[in-house]
């Protein structure tokens, strides 16, 4: 990830269910790819289509009024399950830039941030309240760590300082790590007991 993001401004798409897992977000049958592009069409594949293959017009991401919206509001513990980065790849490819929930699973959160998908964690009551007003154009201000509503409410959300810098400045994490090479070499020469075992 190396494009800077400062603000996200959009109405929302709501998936109220709790514990939306990574198999929901991108079913395993779409993981047989060797690239990271083009997964958006398969995001929530088993919810987007009915079992007979026809498009389910009632599914939130299929509703015409939701087209182009970049904020997803989801139930508690979003992204639980697998470490597949295909999940944020699919969501970003589908046009989403932020996930608002009262809890976001650990590995998903890390993967999301690496792809410019911002996890916005707010208390359950606020999330429930936002879910009732999906047409409000929300503004997510990354520098301020705030989600603002048109009614003028400002909800603070926690964002790790490093994650915030990465988003705002488009910091390349791999570049950051590579710059620590001298420290890494020094660590390796320390030869801790764990390090000493070869494989």
């Amino acid at each position, binding site marked *: *990830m190396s494009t800077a993001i400062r603000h996200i401004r959009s109405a929302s798409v709501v998936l*109220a*269910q*709790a*514990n939306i*897992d990574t*198999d*929901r977000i991108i*079913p*395993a*049958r779409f*993981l*047989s*790819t*060797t*690239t*990271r592009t083009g997964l958006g069409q398969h995001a929530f594949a*088993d919810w987007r289509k009915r*079992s007979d293959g026809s498009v389910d017009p009632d599914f939130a991401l299929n509703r015409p009024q939701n087209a182009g919206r970049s904020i997803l509001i989801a*139930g*508690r*513990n979003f992204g*639980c*399950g*697998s*470490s*597949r*980065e*295909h999940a*944020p790849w699919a969501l970003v490819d589908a046009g989403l830039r932020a996930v608002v929930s009262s*809890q976001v*699973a*650990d*590995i998903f959160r*890390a*993967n999301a941030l*690496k*792809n410019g998908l911002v996890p916005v964690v707010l208390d359950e009551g606020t999330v429930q309240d936002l879910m009732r007003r999906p047409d409000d154009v929300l503004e997510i201000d990354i520098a301020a760590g705030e989600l603002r509503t048109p009614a003028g409410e400002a909800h603070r959300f926690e964002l*790790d*300082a*490093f994650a915030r*810098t990465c988003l705002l400045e488009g910091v390349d*994490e*791999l570049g950051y*790590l*590579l710059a*620590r*090479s001298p*420290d*890494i070499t*020094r*660590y*390796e020469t320390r030869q*801790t*007991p*764990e*390090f000493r*075992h*070869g*494989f």
Partner: protein
Amino acid sequence: MAPPKTLLDKLWDAHVVVPETADAPAVLYVDLHLVHEVTSPQAFTELEARGLSPRRPDRTKATLDHSTPTLPAATDGRLPYASAQSEAQVEALRRNCARHGIELFDLGDARRGIVHVVAPELGLTQPGQTIVCGDSHTSTHGAFGALAFGIGSSEVGHVLATQCLLQRKPRALAITIDGELGPGVGAKDVVLHVIGRIGVNGGTGHVIEFRGSTVRAMSMEQRMTLCNMAIEAGARAGLVAPDATTFAWLAKTPRAPTGEALDEAIAHWRTLASDPDAAFDQEVRIDARGIRPTVTWGTHPGTALAVDQRIPAPADGAETKALAYMQLQAGAHIAGTPVDVVFVGSCTNGRLSDLRDVARVLDGRRVHPRVRMLVVPGSEQVKREAEAEGIDVIVRAAGAEWREPGCSMCIAMNGDLVAPGQLAVSTSNRNFEGRQGPGARTLLASPLTAAASAVAGVVADVRELETAATEAA
């Protein structure tokens, strides 16, 4: 005197290359990086696009498991891949490993199998290490007292290039399980019970250290089952402090230190336990004596209930939806639910002891005619050892399929699928909607419960089957 440390503190401190600050996470060294075909191709592509090559190919080990067929090759030698894409993933890993000098346990290699089964059985997994893999069930290796966790593909690239990760230290959660396990109850029942108690997000932000007399009495296989499912409680990793059971396992593996080096290693490994007064961020106590064979009724692993219980009334809309998806009725007994498929395998319960449990139940019995049963060893080694004991013969004689090692129906990427609407009793780790195929309904269970259900054709209480057998004898 130094302040008391948890096992997590000790593992963490030993691997910090650059300490964390308010502004930046720690740079954490990775001792062992495990790689498989599904989550690595994009990482290798990224690496090459930047003109980089792996920093420590010697600390990177690869295997093929997720996309590989579990049916043998056709007469023309071709393997029945689910798709050309699956085959391309396998080819990509071969190419990447060959190009970068990474050891690969390829198809046909006697060491190949599910990544979380092969590393422990080869002795690559050792106490005190940090171990990562682009797979959430990397938590399995924590059973050896290693800090082991799943990472995404971008991080796979970071580790390839630098052997390091940017990480914030997780919090420590102690789950103390005491008491003897009842008949028919194993590690899978214990961990499903635990997730039922603390919830699928109960471990979020934490590493769980499993402690207590029940855990100490467990075999390495059982400890792996426990740590494997730590991620299903939302935890980053699971841990069990290494002890004599761990050392005995490692002494038998080909890649662990030997002779004097092993003695030295063991002396160090003995220090890898939480200090007596170490403070955990959270503690949970579980009485193992109360645990019965446990299964799930819903669409996440937290929907656990004892096999002799009734399905609870839905607590919210999500549970109502889950019940509808599972085609189950609140208030009904879960036992007696008709079963279409039984899957035994995965990195949760695809090891030799699991297959022995299954064989014990199937021996002299038949799989119910309605049920399709698949038994998939976790690795080539497990398969060889099981066949040496005649487990394959018992499995086949009972009418079940004996397959080649791999992830198979756990993730249903390789063509092994549960059909829409079918109910599967599975020894794997996730009962998410569609996990075993679109529309598939999954009930998680132990190998004993899975085998008993295969015989009965309905979700069954293995204790009843075993009592009946004793009475008949």
